[in-house]
């Protein structure tokens, strides 16, 4: 991942990224995609192999159990033969028991080796899965970068072809200020209109001219009270 990010930064600083030119060249991109496919393939194979080995191990375990069962059954037979004084028969059964026990030992050894291979393979699967996730992340960065470059190149071409050319930040700021001023004017106008509608503006004008109806009313009440003093 670090190498991909470094490649992108180096190319950017070098000014390679003119008009959608791919920063990590398409060859590098193809290599990354090939690595991704290889990893996916390896993972699939390893998983199939793992499944086969686990099935084999389970089958071996079954065979071992069956041999052990046979051996213990034969042991009972041998005891019975000894009890009945049939020494020769007991020896024959004992030979069978030895055969079962040898097969158990052989099968157990094979299974032990198999378990080791399974453990190794499980580790390989985990490694492949992690590597796959890494490649996918890298590829995503590379592809997003290319997409952004192509997209901005397309926007630039389009705007230039409309002959309106990409407006400068100063022009944009000017337009923003004009709109904001217009909005402010509208707000002031609607506040004025509201005052007119409610008559608030007339009250203000009368007050400014020293004509305050509220004050007049208070004064007239005071005058009335003074005319009829408390008894």
């Amino acid at each position, binding site marked *: 991942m670090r190498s991909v990010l470094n490649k992108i930064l180096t190319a950017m600083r070098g000014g390679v*990224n*003119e008009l959608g030119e791919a920063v990590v060249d398409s060859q590098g991109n193809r290599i990354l995609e090939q690595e991704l496919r290889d990893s996916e393939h390896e993972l699939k194979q390893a998983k199939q192999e793992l499944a086969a080995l686990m099935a084999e191990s389970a089958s071996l375990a079954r065979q071992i159990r069956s041999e052990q069962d046979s051996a213990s059954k034969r042991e009972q037979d041998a005891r019975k033969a000894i009890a009945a004084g049939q020494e020769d028969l007991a020896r024959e059964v004992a030979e069978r028991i030895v055969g079962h026990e040898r097969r158990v030992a052989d099968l157990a050894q094979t299974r032990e080796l198999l378990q080791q291979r399974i453990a190794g393979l499980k580790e390989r699967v985990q490694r492949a899965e992690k590597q796959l996730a890494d490649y996918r992340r890298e590829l*995503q960065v590379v*592809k*997003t970068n290319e*997409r*952004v*470059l*192509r*997209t*901005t*190149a*397309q*926007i630039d*071409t*389009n705007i230039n072809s409309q002959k309106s050319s*990409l407006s*400068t*930040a*100063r022009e*944009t*700021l000017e*337009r*923003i200020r004009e*709109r904001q001023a217009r909005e402010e004017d509208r707000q002031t106008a609607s506040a004025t209109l509201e005052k007119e509608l409610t008559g608030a503006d007339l009250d203000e004008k009368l007050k400014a001219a020293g004509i305050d109806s509220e004050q007049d009313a208070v004064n007239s009440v005071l005058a009335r009270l003074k005319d009829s003093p408390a008894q």
Partner: protein
Amino acid sequence: MDIQTLTLALGDSTHAGRTFDVMPIVGEEPVLQVTVSGAEETPVYVTVTDTQILCLVYLFDEQELNPERLSELHENMLRISVPMPLSALGKTGDHYVAYGALSPTSGAAEIMQELVTLAENSIDLLQTFEDYLA
């Protein structure tokens, strides 16, 4: 969410009292220019990829900036990028951009929220960084 669905969804929707004017940008890549009402000066460019919906606003170009104050501007852009709601600051080619990325599974409401926020943020950013223009 693909470009066609988005075009249709934005065309006759309002979000937080805003309407959207959508214009496809001709070319190989599916790109839309979306103008948000009340923030018409900062059109948002939208492109949809497998992994994200990318919304971009051009702020200013490198050659428009006062070269002596460039590192101070960069420092301030980095600092302001973190607390700014939904948008981040970046650079592609010579363009300094404000951008936001959404999951491709985002719905129309999330995308409209992003578009309105990004357009408004961009106006605030332009006015904030005006002093750094040459």
